[in-house]
């Protein structure tokens, strides 16, 4: 049984999207239980090509879990994910068969992910990190993969670190390499899981700058973040999550500057007080 995906009025395409465009991401009624803890209680999201969407909310509200359900690093308890036409339903009870696993890999090819902890491969150089998957997943030859990787290293401003090992890079540089690694697979959507939360405050800016330039380039991005200013500047739409539900969805000027929902207001006021704004 499939649930019909409904686009809510708050999810009307942002200003970058051509009228009549088809969504690239449709997540429908995603639920997730951890033992008896109901983390996600039916979250749906629609993202159109070229949109930058941020997910805000308190720690523990389920933001990261939702993001990880989108590429099935976390198996949802219920729901359907459709990314670029690859549709995968939650299958919490049985292990997936070969075909099912292949479909998830197919879906992941359309959705690159950037992690809070970077997760660069420490035994590979920067360029090695970037070409590993294009060569061993897509079967590209080394020269083409390297060429493509170098373009992305230039994009994140780290071409001079090409042959360096990750351990010799700063946190901000590592995260930029991780972004370039995701880009080199040429996904349709980029998923960011709190990309700046593990960074020294002085290094946050360089990563956000790269993400901003990607947003301007028209990349489709879904970003879980605590960077309120970034969300306000770069996002086309903001999803505010509270206790496993999207409590408020809308353009940042509405959700952040003029929240309608009581929970959003409480969160923002506490957040703004905390950050001395």
């Amino acid at each position, binding site marked *: 049984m499939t649930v019909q995906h409904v686009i809510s009025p708050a999810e009307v395409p942002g200003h970058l999207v051509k009228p009549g465009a088809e969504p690239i991401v449709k997540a429908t009624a995603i639920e997730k239980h951890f033992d008896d803890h109901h983390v996600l209680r039916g979250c749906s999201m629609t993202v159109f090509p070229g949109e930058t969407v941020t997910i805000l909310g308190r720690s523990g509200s389920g933001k990261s879990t939702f993001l990880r359900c989108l590429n099935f690093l976390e198996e949802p308890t219920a729901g359907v994910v459709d990314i670029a036409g690859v549709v995968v339903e939650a299958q919490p009870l049985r292990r997936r068969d070969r075909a099912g696993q292949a479909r998830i890999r197919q879906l992941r090819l359309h959705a690159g992910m950037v992690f809070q902890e970077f*997760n660069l*491969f*420490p*035994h590979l150089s920067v360029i090695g990190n970037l070409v590993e*998957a294009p060569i061993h*997943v897509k079967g590209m030859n080394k020269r083409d993969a390297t060429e493509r990787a170098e373009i992305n290293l230039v994009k994140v401003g780290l071409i001079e670190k090409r042959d360096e*090992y990750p351990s*010799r890079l700063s946190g901000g540089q590592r995260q930029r390499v991780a972004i370039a690694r*995701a880009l080199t697979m040429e996904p349709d959507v980029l998923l960011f899981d709190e990309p700046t939360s593990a960074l020294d405050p002085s290094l946050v800016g360089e990563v956000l700058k790269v993400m901003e330039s990607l947003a301007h380039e028209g990349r489709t991005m879904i970003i879980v973040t605590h960077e309120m200013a970034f969300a306000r500047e770069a996002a086309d739409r903001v999803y505010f999550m509270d206790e496993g539900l999207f409590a408020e969805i809308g353009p940042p000027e509405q959700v952040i500057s003029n929240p309608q929902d009581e929970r959003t207001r409480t969160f923002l006021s506490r957040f703004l007080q905390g950050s001395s704004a």
Partner: protein
Amino acid sequence: MSLAMDTSNENLVADIARAQERRSRSWRTKFLVTWAVIVVALVAFILVTVNVDSVFLQKWIPFILAGIPVTLFLAVTSIFFATILAALGALGRLSRNPYLNGIASFYVSFFRGTPLLLQILFIFLALPQAGIVLPAVPTAIVALSLNYGSYMTEVFRSGIEAVPHGQTEAAESLGMTSRTTFRRIVAPQAFRIVTPAVGNDFVAMIKDSSLASVVGVQEILWRAQTAGRPTFQSMQTLLVAAFIYWVLTIIFSLFQGRLEKRMATGDRTQRRAQ
């Protein structure tokens, strides 16, 4: 620290450095003297208690030394097979498949739970009753491989588990199959983690290969016993054997130390000079 240090301060720094140097030199001297005293005492004890027969030793030392290649052959061959067994065992122990996991955990439990000496004797003396007859050298290799393989299985398993889960997630989020993830991402990192332990096991294997003497493999200990027993001169021959093992383990420990250093720098620094 302030940039402008006055001269008295500089003198102080130099004095501290000199004092530290003096202290560490005196420590090293005491350390070396301790070794020297022990060695001299041992040599004196031997000279006093036994009549060192240089003709006897001249005759038999080459015979004992000829055991070195045998010992090394046993150790190298067995560590090779033990590594293969351990790799398979670790995959089994980490497998979701209950049969494979069951086989692997039984293997580890049984071969870690029984003495190596018993295993050697069992293969040599008991298996012939079941119609399986192995010569002495294969017996020793099989027993050492199985026994060390069981220990190393757990080492390999923990090495694989020590690779952070985020590595697997990153690889899978890039679309890698679990097989590719293991082969390209997890295994190379686990390999670095377990290398020191495998080196340790190799050094231990050199010594444990002496157990093969009980089934007549003509390695170092067997030769020492054979040479010393008829004329009750085991003190000399066993000391020679002990000395040989000692030197071998020192050599391989040094070698291992260097290897470890190389492995450690592999992922931390650039290999080419800056």
